């Protein structure tokens, strides 16, 4: 029974990582860089099931890594920008704000759901402890 707390905890942890990357992406949506390589690219966490000792046991979630979006970065002609290169171009981020908003809502809902699982399991455990009183 205690495993369910670990599982819900691992899920909340993973969703927090996702919220953090979303916050970073939103914050850097308007960042510009001088070269294409330096431009900010949207980051996304990769989730994987965390299998316990036996293959059949219930599984938590782990974040196996953070990948950067492969979408092309935006090249804009802004000769007045102090970050502009010799030809007057700046390289903006490839963050898609609509996608990030959807991601944020999804992460927040998943977090709430898992915290509800956590609370319900905790209540059940407390009631079990009081059995026979």
């Amino acid at each position: 029974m205690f495993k369910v707390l670990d599982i819900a905890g691992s899920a909340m942890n993973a969703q927090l990582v996702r919220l953090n990357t979303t916050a970073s992406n939103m914050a850097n949506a308007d960042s510009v860089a001088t070269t294409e390589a330096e431009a900010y690219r949207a980051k996304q966490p990769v989730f994987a099931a965390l299998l316990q000792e036996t293959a059949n046991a219930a599984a938590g979630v782990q974040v196996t890594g953070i990948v950067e979006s492969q979408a092309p970065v935006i090249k804009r002609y802004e000769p007045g920008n102090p970050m502009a290169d010799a030809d007057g171009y700046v390289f903006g981020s490839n963050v898609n704000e609509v996608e990030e908003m959807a991601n944020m809502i999804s992460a927040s809902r998943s977090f709430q759901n898992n915290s509800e699982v956590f609370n319900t399991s905790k209540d059940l455990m407390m009631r079990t402890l009081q059995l026979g009183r």
Partner: protein
Amino acid sequence: MPLNFDTALGVHERALYTRAKRTEVLGANMANVDTPGYQARDLDFRAALEGAQQQNLSVSRTRSNHIQPDGGAAALEAQLKYRVPNQPSLDGNTVELHIEQAQFADNAVRYQATLTFLGSKFSGLKDAITGGR
């Protein structure tokens, strides 16, 4: 007639254990709602409970070619089945949150019902010991 806790509590002790296991499995499903390729699972409660009860009957093998009675946790995990999704998603994830939430709530209520049954068993035993005083 000797008073034995195994027989006094009846099916409820095993039922509580099986419900607790099912809480873990459903919690794991909800934890992995955003994990690509994760396949939702559930416990066949009737089969799991029957399996758990059978091992209570202490089967002894009289011939070497008889089937080996299996142990507690292994018997439960053998009853783990994969859910058939109504609308599988493109990333191979078969968790459907509304179904998992409904099953989790159902399981939590039934867990509490079992707790209540166990509680009355205990107060019945207490009455028998104190003679209803």
